[in-house]
């Protein structure tokens, strides 16, 4: 964190968080949600929105007690260097794993439907090279790039939904309760980690307008939840349960099924750049965030020496899964499942320490 003055505006901060939270919708999002909620899986993202809001409010209330300080520094002040090191490892785990699995899944998506003869290592190299350049240039570069592409991302993401309307079958929503209220709640809790990337707000807090912290956090979660909801609901309406559970990457199938007459077919190549942009921005964010956390943990002002090392970590993580199934499973097991609970636990510990200290100070 080489700079300590606000350099990222509200809309840019929202864009960064929105992209980082909702990158999943263009990858294997929903694969495990459909098995939990069955034909009512669309309810799960709605419940998750509440969990995401709770998480972000918990983070915001902690950050607002320490104006201008990031989560790593706050943790060190409240819990000391040793316990904080455990927290830092968790933050790194989230950022590096997000980056690694985005890289692998994005490359797998290219290999499965577009560049079938190209070695996946080459695709991976180009992804990481692009992200490396952007993240090396700093948070401003990542934020401006993300903000510049946001319009294209939203328009094409919505176009993909709108073009599939002729395929929607509303009977797919019945029976309304799918796996039942308990099944849906269980599914939502198991997938609550879809919002763990709000952690990034704790990293960029020193660079965003302090008075807009709450608005940025809430808007990001709400916008991201809208896309997560849409990209669970629409495949469900098109492919219906139980066929929808078979899809490895529902968004690819959504694009492939668009059929606007004899000449309006095979449109996925139009959406391909959107997926690539989204994944590149996500990867840049993950790279920057990991490097920034490393820098803060080692009490250095410049994050840049850590960008390359973070990239190596991300490449290693991307190479760990032996196949695409394992990559999807790792994403679910280590990121989607319960990781938000772990973050909430850390935030609660920090809140408790802050509360106890506050009480002691007031007594003193």
């Amino acid at each position, binding site marked *: 964190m080489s700079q300590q003055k606000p350099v990222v505006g509200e809309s840019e901060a929202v864009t960064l968080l929105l992209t980082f939270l909702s990158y999943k919708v263009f990858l294997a999002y929903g694969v495990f949600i459909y098995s939990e909620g*069955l*034909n*009512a899986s669309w309810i799960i993202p709605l419940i998750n929105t509440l969990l995401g809001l709770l998480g972000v409010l918990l983070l915001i209330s902690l950050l607002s007690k320490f104006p201008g300080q990031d989560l790593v520094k706050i943790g060190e002040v409240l819990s000391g260097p040793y316990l904080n090191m455990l927290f830092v490892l968790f933050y790194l785990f989230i950022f590096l794993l997000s980056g690694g699995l985005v890289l692998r899944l994005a490359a797998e998506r290219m290999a*499965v*439907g*577009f*560049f*079938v*003869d*190209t*070695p996946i290592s*080459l695709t991976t190299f*180009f992804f990481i090279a692009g992200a490396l350049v952007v993240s090396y240039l700093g948070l401003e570069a990542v934020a401006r790039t993300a903000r510049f592409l946001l319009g294209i991302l939203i328009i094409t993401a919505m176009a993909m939904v709108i073009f599939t309307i002729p*395929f929607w079958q509303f*009977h797919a929503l*019945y*029976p*309304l*309760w*799918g*796996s*039942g209220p308990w*099944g849906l709640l269980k599914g939502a809790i198991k997938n609550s980690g879809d919002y763990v990337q709000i952690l990034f707000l704790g990293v960029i807090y020193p660079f965003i307008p302090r008075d807009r912290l709450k608005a940025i956090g809430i808007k990001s979660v709400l916008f991201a939840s809208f896309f997560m909801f849409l990209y669970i609901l629409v495949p469900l309406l098109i*492919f*219906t*349960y*139980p*066929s929808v559970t*078979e899809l490895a990457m529902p968004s690819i*199938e959504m694009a*492939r*099924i668009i*059929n606007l007459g*004899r000449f309006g*077919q*095979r449109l996925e190549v139009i959406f391909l750049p959107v997926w690539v942009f989204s994944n590149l921005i996500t990867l840049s964010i993950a790279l920057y965030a990991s490097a920034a956390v490393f820098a803060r943990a080692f009490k250095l002002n410049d994050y840049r020496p850590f960008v390359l090392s973070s990239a190596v970590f991300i490449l290693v993580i991307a190479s760990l899964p032996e196949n695409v199934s394992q990559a999807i499973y790792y994403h679910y097991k280590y990121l989607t499942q319960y990781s938000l609970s772990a973050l909430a636990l850390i935030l609660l510990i920090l809140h408790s320490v802050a509360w106890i200290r506050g009480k002691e100070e007031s007594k003193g």
Partner: protein
Amino acid sequence: MKQTVFLLLVLLLTLPLASCYDYSEPDEKAWVLAIGMDKGKENKLTVTTIIAVPKNIAGAGGGGEGGGGGGGQETFFSVSLEVPSLLSALELLDAVVDRRPDLSHTAWFVFSRELAEEGIEAYFAPLARFYQFRRSANIIICEEQAQEFLSRGKPILEDNVSKYYQLQQQAYQYTEFIPNDTLHQFYIKSKSPGVAAMAPLAALKKEKPINNGAPSPRPETDIPKGEYQAGQLPRQGSGEIEVMGAAVFRQGWMVGTLNGDELGAARMLEGTLKQTIKDIPDPAQPDTYLIAMVKPRQKPQIKVDIGPDYPQISIELKFEGDLLSVQSGINYEEPHMLHIAEQAITQSLQEDINKYLAKSQQLGTDVAGLGLSAKKNFRTWPEWEAYDWESKYPLASINVNVDYRLRRIGLLHETVPLR
């Protein structure tokens, strides 16, 4: 120096933009436009591929008798291979075709009836998984061997056989006799409880022309046009292929067929019918016909009550249309006569629907998807699955109400008799 190195690096990075590994030229590919599958003679399957000959499609335009296109040149050729699975054929094709086969423009997957009756689940599974296939393609069931069906199925109006396949199937928009189910619908219906899958039924035209070409007495009663299905059409001329009616499936096995009228009724109940033309015996002179256009006025209203033993289904169907012809010359166009014509059309539609329902219950296949309305009665998916609609549907009590309104009477407002 630094700048030169940077520039060189940037230039080097632009090289892969030309796409080195996935480079492909359209004129180096063999575009497979249809795939046929039969029970194998020397292996599990006989897979027939129809491959476009682009140079003849591009150069077509002249007259000539050549199959499948103008200019007297073949616009496609077929290759049949004995293989253990559908995708094995893709690799074996490399041994006999100089260009690399590509399946991404395959419009028809044709299964022979013989194979479909033994179950096609194992064969259509790769159609959803393999990236080159598209869910917008069609599954066709042909009465004959798919090999013969595809090889003889040459277009007359089109140079491009792919366009012929697509346009032939798109006729579902103008007739009730062809289902509009693509591979996508076929696939999801095959896997969903509450609805059965169906596929267009096709056949080659009869070897012998109508009545063997000899004059014969007309049958005592006229045969409604929808009584036929593919392979039975009394016709002379046009191409070899005819598509009419549907093959219906239960758990991946073909269990029967629907003729044109039965399929039309199923599509009315399903809500996918766009328009059709009905010939209805004139109520005043039954040896003449009233001919009317039928279009849906609103979506079918289907209510299903889950009784203790069997479901009770009530259906409201509302149609409208134009009076196209009155052979008897009776002035049904007059406002006080219109309802007589409407009633006759309503009754005819009702009869067709009842016939279809009786047949579908007998086959135990709910291709119209009445079960999809039954789902609303259940709270959760496990409860719905436990109800086992497929076993209850044949016992269901079904009550259908049809309402047809004539909206237009064409360009004449009355018929003056011939003198």
